């Protein structure tokens, strides 16, 4: 593969690839940060009728002044048509199964799409719970999204330490131990449909639920991705290259990302 002159960053490619997964008219929940940028990019570009919501019950809003600092940040409270609350947004609309799609992030993700955002331990936690070496953010609303949303998109920087055979702590369930183990819990949500990274897109095998490489980017390749994945990453027979961002896509994304958060490497 040729060395590729990036006219967009890896983060921008990831955000665009994520946004492409969203369909017009869907009820969608975005977390703060990358996930919101990907979601609002989709609304700006190809899904104008997306019904975007936040965990706190901000409806009908389009952020102003740049990436919101948080889900009740004034940048997303300036033009909402409705404010309700957490029970409504995360309960009535997400945990209930009414939300079509959610986008979450991960500090660590494993081959069954389980997500850890709780902490980093030195080794296994062991039989007795103990404080992590590095405390992270906890589950937030991601667990609720992972249990309830129709499908879940996981966005994560593709680094070996983030891709584990098994996460140390499951903050938000993917397919648990794979196969049909997720079904034991009766979750109304379908589970993660893709892990979209700075290097490519992983999707679950329909039977084993193990995430496999589905596509790589114009600037990445299979080996690079495998060597940055903490488990033996299988490759889908139909693996393919993700189309480059179009001029229109980049324009739409950068309109949403007006403070340039995604252009910082």
């Amino acid at each position, binding site marked *: 593969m040729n060395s590729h002159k990036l006219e967009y960053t890896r983060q921008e490619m990831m955000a665009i690839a994520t946004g492409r997964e969203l369909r017009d008219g869907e009820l969608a929940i975005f977390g703060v940060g990358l996930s919101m940028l990907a979601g609002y990019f989709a609304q700006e570009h190809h899904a104008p009728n997306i019904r975007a919501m936040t965990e706190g019950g901000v409806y009908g809003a389009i952020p102003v002044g740049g990436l919101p600092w948080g889900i009740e940040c004034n940048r997303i409270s300036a033009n909402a048509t409705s404010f309700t609350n957490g029970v409504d947004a995360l309960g009535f609309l997400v945990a209930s199964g009414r939300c079509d799609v959610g986008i979450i992030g991960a500090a660590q993700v494993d081959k069954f799409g389980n997500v850890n955002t709780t902490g980093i331990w030195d080794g296994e936690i062991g039989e007795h719970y103990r404080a992590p070496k590095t405390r992270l953010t906890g589950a937030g609303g991601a*667990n609720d999204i992972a249990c309830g949303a129709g499908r879940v998109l996981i966005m994560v920087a593709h680094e070996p330490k983030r891709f584990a055979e098994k996460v140390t702590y499951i903050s938000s369930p993917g397919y648990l131990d794979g196969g049909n183990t997720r079904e034991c819990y009766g979750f109304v949500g379908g589970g993660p449909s893709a892990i979209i990274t700075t290097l490519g897109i992983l999707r679950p095998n329909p039977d084993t639920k193990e995430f496999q490489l589905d596509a790589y980017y114009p600037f990445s390749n299979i080996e690079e991705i495998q060597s940055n994945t903490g488990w033996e990453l299988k490759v889908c027979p139909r693996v393919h290259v993700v189309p480059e961002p179009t001029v229109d896509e980049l324009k739409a994304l950068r309109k949403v990302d007006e403070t340039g958060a995604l252009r910082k490497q």
Partner: protein
Amino acid sequence: MPQPKLISLAAAVDRFTQNGVQYASGAALPIGSDAIVLGRELLRQGRNQLHAIFHCNSQQLNLLAGAGAVDKAECGFSGLEVFGFANGLRRAVETGATQLEDYSNLAMAIRLFGGAMNWPFVPATVNIGSDIQYRSAFSPEEYPATSKIPMITDPFSGRQLGAFQSLQPEVAAIHVSMADPLGNAIMLGTEWSRFELSRAAKKVILVADEIVHTDCMRQFPNLVRIPDIVVDAVVYWPFAAWPQSSPGLYDVDEDHMRSMNKALATEETTQQYLKDYVFSYQSHRDYLGMIGNETREKITQTETSFLMDPYRKWILSADEIAKLVLEGER
């Protein structure tokens, strides 16, 4: 006729809190509404060994934990959203000073709902199957934990689901945009879980950025989601959520969000922060000075300020409020 409930911040902390109290704050949004100034006052009055119940971490929990005042905490999210990890809370958890019991954001909200209903438990269709269910910081020896989120059976279908324990915090400080002297309150922006918290908690202190005449409530009764009948005290404190935001009134103070969180990363710099931003003021005027004119001017230039327009004509002046506080403390 309900009675005015305006009291000073110091009196509220003195009357309604003690060491070891189960203390809930609302909204407990990491960037938005939260009764942060009440947390400062808890430290000023030396409260410690708190059991903090926060829907999410906010700069308040970050500060309280960073200052070593929190023995136990329960929350759904322990970060600061775009501002990163919460260094004070993080340090307290990593050193073992604070035991942090993890739930999800929905879990915290419906546990408060359950507390408001006085149900012993709430059905759980989330958090099950993950380590939120199987790991308990409050019962570390139990693995997989079965007492934190036990499984129950739906009597109609036989389906298995989980059960959350309800929450009824001993005292809650709830940040609101506006309150009247009787304790009727209007929140602008998402409620998060303040509605449920105001009913679940045994004592409720409102911390309001503005005090308005009760006529405002009579014009907009559907906005009064916290009625006086569930409120024990009202504290008037403009910029109460600073450095976080209050929709309609002020934006997040980006610089202080960062410098505060940076300070909370070490014991030493935390002590300096306490000196500069907790023990430093004697009055609300001092507090405003501490924030600084320039900053206040900047953060009040918020795109959301039109949200306050319908209510401005009912805002009471500081003098009128001071008189009512005097009466309230008698």
